């Protein structure tokens, strides 16, 4: 598993992907941060971390698009599957490599927080809570992206589908806002990433929200192992 993580991180940084994703992440978080300073507002979590929700939905699929699709296309999956490692270890290795890049992206908030702390006393509780939420959200999007990547040989298809799923997640609350049926509303709000994430940004560390994101991660990684295994049996 460590070998896979190491190789994937190396691949991220030897291609442009890691840099592009990080650059986009830095750019938007920087823009939001500037806006926050301009408006003289102290709510870092609300004005900077919260809008990153949308940015993550759109850039993280870029990070995951090639993870498995490229293996299938180059037939290097043969080396992975015939090596003495389990499919879980392969999938987990890929997932964790993308997580490392996500953490690199999120490292941009460290200098921002330092700047804020230099001038005022930030509400640490909300900031940490939101960062945990952001990491969980990002991990869930990555897990979904890994799953999508395992379904196709084409990176482009994986990216497009990944972004489309991201858009769907983003618009889920809007789409169903007009629906009157209580039952459907309940379902949507319980699977809504936005609702869950906004709980974090308002400083609520709900066990239910943490479990929700962890389940999404676990479920999609499990699906990924099934997809790879299914190819062997068909």
């Amino acid at each position, binding site marked *: 598993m*460590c*070998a*896979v993580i*190491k*190789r994937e991180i*190396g*691949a991220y940084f*030897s*291609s442009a992907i890691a840099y592009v994703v990080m650059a986009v992440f830095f750019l938007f978080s920087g823009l939001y941060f500037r806006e926050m300073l301009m408006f003289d507002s102290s709510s870092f979590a609300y004005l900077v971390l919260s809008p990153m929700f949308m940015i993550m939905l759109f850039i993280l699929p870029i990070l995951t698009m090639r993870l498995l699709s490229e293996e299938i296309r*180059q*037939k*290097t*999956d*043969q*080396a*992975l*599957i*015939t*090596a*003495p*490692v*389990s499919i879980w270890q392969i999938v987990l290795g890929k997932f964790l490599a993308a997580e490392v890049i996500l953490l690199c992206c999120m490292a941009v908030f460290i200098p921002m927080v330092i700047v804020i702390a230099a001038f005022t006393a930030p509400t640490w509780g909300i900031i940490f809570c939101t960062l945990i939420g952001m990491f969980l959200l990002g991990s869930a999007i990555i897990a979904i992206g890994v799953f999508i990547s395992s379904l196709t040989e084409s990176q482009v298809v994986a990216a497009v589908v990944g972004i489309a799923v991201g858009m769907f997640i983003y618009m889920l609350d809007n789409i169903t806002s007009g629906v009157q049926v209580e039952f459907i509303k309940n379902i949507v709000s319980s699977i809504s990433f936005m609702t869950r994430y906004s709980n974090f940004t308002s400083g609520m560390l709900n066990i239910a929200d943490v479990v929700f994101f962890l389940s999404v991660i676990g479920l999609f990684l499990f699906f990924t192992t099934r997809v790879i295994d299914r*190819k*062997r*049996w*068909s």
Partner: protein
Amino acid sequence: MVEVKNLVKKYGDMLAVDDVSFTAETGEILGFLGPNGAGKSTTMNIITGYISSSSGTVTVDGCEILDDPVGAKSKIGYLPEIPPLYIDMTVRKYLEFMFNLKKVTLPKKEHIDEVCAVTKIKDVQNRIIKHLSKGYKQRVGLAQALLGNPPVIILDEPTVGLDPKQIIEMRSLIKGLGKKHTVILSSHVLSEVQAICDRIIIINRGRLVADSSTSELSQTLSKSNCIVLRVVGAPTGVLSALRAVEGVYRVEKGLRVSDNCYEYEVYSEKDKDPSRAIFYAMAKNNTPIVLMRGNELSLEEAFLKVTKSEPAPKEKGGKR
């Protein structure tokens, strides 16, 4: 070392591998021969655990591939038809990755150096795989299979796409490997298998059609003693003289080679060698022999003979 029992692989209705069983002993080079799409790659992919069989078992050094996949896989080095190379990595980095992936416990630097030396890729170690020629890529693929000195090495068409010099190098390399490892290699080039392998398995349309040692195979399939002659002289005289030789039961006139020179096929009873008698007979007849050779079937002919005699089943073999 490797035991394959009643292996069946179905793709939907297609029967790609149909009840194949064989064993490979330690230190044996086993050739896997068959036309394209015969099920060679499929069988190898099943042995290495890349795909699963529909039924049947594969045991590698006591480990069953489905019950103990990690154990079985750690005993196999596999070079698939298309070498599984990460083309954006350097050769060295790639081999280090595969070393770690296979959890090899040998000293890393020394072992990779050793493998590079064996496969002669030392001088391209720091180049990016993408820029290597096909021959070098193949060797990097082989190097990858050798990492960790696995007792079983499986090579799927290792010489495809190589130039003649590289083919000869690859062959001698594989022969060298056969001393320490069990090697299973597939090929549709017959002379290759004949040159490298101790034993040959012929597979056609997913079915095992022959399994024997290389020499045995061509012997059992060869025609009863048959000698091909080229004799200068009038055919009628030659024919009657040949027919008079003891032990000869049939003579056929073949091609006209040149003016007054014809080819003859002389069949004799088994266990009898009439070549000396033929020589004296022709000398007496004053018709000089310009060529005489035993007509042992080459593997090529043997192969055609074996695969042709198989009735074509309805399901066709598929390649993955």
